[in-house]
């Protein structure tokens, strides 16, 4: 049994602002085990940042339980906060200070040795620019500074809300490698991001949130398998026979649709049955590939946010799961 670093049960939060109350979290659950890189996914406005802010004690929840490293939050937050490094939605820093001053002041505030500052700059690739004012930094450089500030504590739990925001491709790859290294060193990482290909590569587990509720969770492979369509792509030797082939497969009890120059067949147990059925009618298969669902399509399906041609989707039009699921 691996130990839980982060546990959230039934978290509720309703913002009360001028536009009337807005329910941002509606009984949200989350579970992160030690040593994982955990992806936290959800459409815009689904409650990711709200969850992380609540965890960090920046906002008060209206109900539910939270634990970090086994300690009840928010009561025990002052005790565990030294073990939690976090950036929440591109944190801003005082623009007129240099990056070094910024981190050095944080190190003082957190009772950390000043030597950590250089270590953190080295890690995020800002060493040579550390003495420049934050005001003059580019978006990606500010983001790197933010990550450096979260790493400064050498935390056991690292929470990164959209750390890749504004990073260049090289930066994204560096971030990925950095997270792999940190996680190998025993750090637990919670990572919210919209770059799903990235999440699919680096995360051990994911939690997907939609309108304040969890819609899926678990190891990436399981989430993909549970929602993979089991489709097979079939390319024939001659494309003119597609219509005929489709009806042959239908007769064999398979759901087949013509999709451009190939067929998509679903409900397939053994792909061999396709080629057998077609060969019996003198139709020869040139290519037979099982269609693996990727995280993006699973995400779009689960959250109901796939774009529909001719329709404009509003931010809150995503899937709501019934509570108690």
């Amino acid at each position, binding site marked *: 049994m691996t130990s839980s670093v982060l546990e959230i049960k039934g978290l509720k939060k309703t913002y009360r602002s001028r536009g009337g109350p807005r329910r941002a979290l509606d009984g949200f659950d989350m579970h992160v085990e030690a040593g994982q890189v955990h992806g936290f996914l959800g459409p815009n406005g689904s409650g990711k940042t709200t969850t992380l802010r609540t965890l960090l004690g920046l906002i008060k929840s209206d109900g539910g339980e939270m634990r970090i490293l086994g300690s009840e939050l928010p009561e025990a937050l002052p005790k565990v906060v030294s073990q939690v490094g976090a950036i929440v939605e591109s944190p801003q820093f005082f*623009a007129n200070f240099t990056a070094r001053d910024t981190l050095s002041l944080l190190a003082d505030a957190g009772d950390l040795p000043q030597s950590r500052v250089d270590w953190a700059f080295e890690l995020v690739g800002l060493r040579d620019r550390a003495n420049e004012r934050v005001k003059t930094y580019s978006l990606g450089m500010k983001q790197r500074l933010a990550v450096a500030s979260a790493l400064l504590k050498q935390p056991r739990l690292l929470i990164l809300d959209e750390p890749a925001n504004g990073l260049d491709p090289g930066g994204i790859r560096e971030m990925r490698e950095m997270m792999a290294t940190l996680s190998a060193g025993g750090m637990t990482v919670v990572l919210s991001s919209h770059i799903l290909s990235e999440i699919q590569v680096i995360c051990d587990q994911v939690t997907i949130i939609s309108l304040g509720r969890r819609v899926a969770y678990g190891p990436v492979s399981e989430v993909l398998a549970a929602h993979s369509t089991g489709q097979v792509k079939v390319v024939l030797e001659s494309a003119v026979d597609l219509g005929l082939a489709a009806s042959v497969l239908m007769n064999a009890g398979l759901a087949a649709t013509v999709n451009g120059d190939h067929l998509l067949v679903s409900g397939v147990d053994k792909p061999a049955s396709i080629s057998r059925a077609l060969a019996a009618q003198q139709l020869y298969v040139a290519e037979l590939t099982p269609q693996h669902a990727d995280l993006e399509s699973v995400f779009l399906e689960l959250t109901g946010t796939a774009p529909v041609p001719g329709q404009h989707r509003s931010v809150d039009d995503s899937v709501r799961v019934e509570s108690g699921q």
Partner: protein
Amino acid sequence: MSLVKAERRRFFKRRMTVWMLVIGLAILGAIGAGFVATHSKHTPEAVAAGEAKAKAAYAKEVREFEDKWKKECEATSKDPAACQGPPAEYFTAEHYMKPEFDFKLFYGEILIIWAAIMAMIAFVLGATYIGAEWSSGAMMNLLTWRPKRISVLGTKLGVLLGSMAAIGTATLLLWTGMLWGIAKVAGHTNGMTGSAWGSFGLAGLRGVAMIMAFAALGFGLASLGRHTALALGVAIGVVIVGQIGLSIVLAMADVPFFERYLIPVHMDAWLKKSVELEGGGYTCGPSGCIPEAVSELTYKTSGLIGLAVVVAVTALAFWSIKRRDVA
């Protein structure tokens, strides 16, 4: 303690702090230069020069009178004997010399110049110190390091007040030293007994307290609004509507002693221990005009009012940071 160190570093690292102090010292220095330019020591030579000037001026006036006005006066006046030249006693040496800078007489009167300038600076520093933290998001970031909000805000306020006490005392010493120097070159320091120094010292301490109060006020307002602009907006609103507007309206409505509603009057009372307000018109007699009614405003009243305002705003700021979400 680590947070205290970090906050103190932050406070003195801010360019705003440095610039406001430079500007404040420049203004105080310019005022000092003005005093030097308009005052001078009454040395025997200076008195002699003044007397010579007075004599020359008298002679000139008399000559002018004899030449022009005498004939005209004698022609039109019923009593030609009354047509005399200007009286000699009007032409004293003092009128032809710059006044002396009397340290003992002036110090208490102009202490408000230092105190008001530094109080304004303290207000701006207090407001921007926390306001910039809130609006830049640095405050939110800090709270993810230090989740105890009351203690974070308390530490910041403490560091601000400590720094302003130090800055206030340092500038008070500079101001006093400057005035002493001015008195030495362009006046005198007669009568500065130990008890005179004692009461000046107390007035200076009241000034430092006032500076700290303004810092706390700016800090509290900016923290409540989570932006520097709120504090500055309130300040401008109070000055324009609450002070200039109010004083016009009250004066027009003939409210007796309307000065008691004006902040500078209270500041003056706080520093001088008491001020007399005049109201209800004047009765004029041969010995000058005397007000029909006077009312005394003491530093106790003004101090209590100021303390109440500062405590209320600060308490609200602490209550708000405890209660409100940081998002």
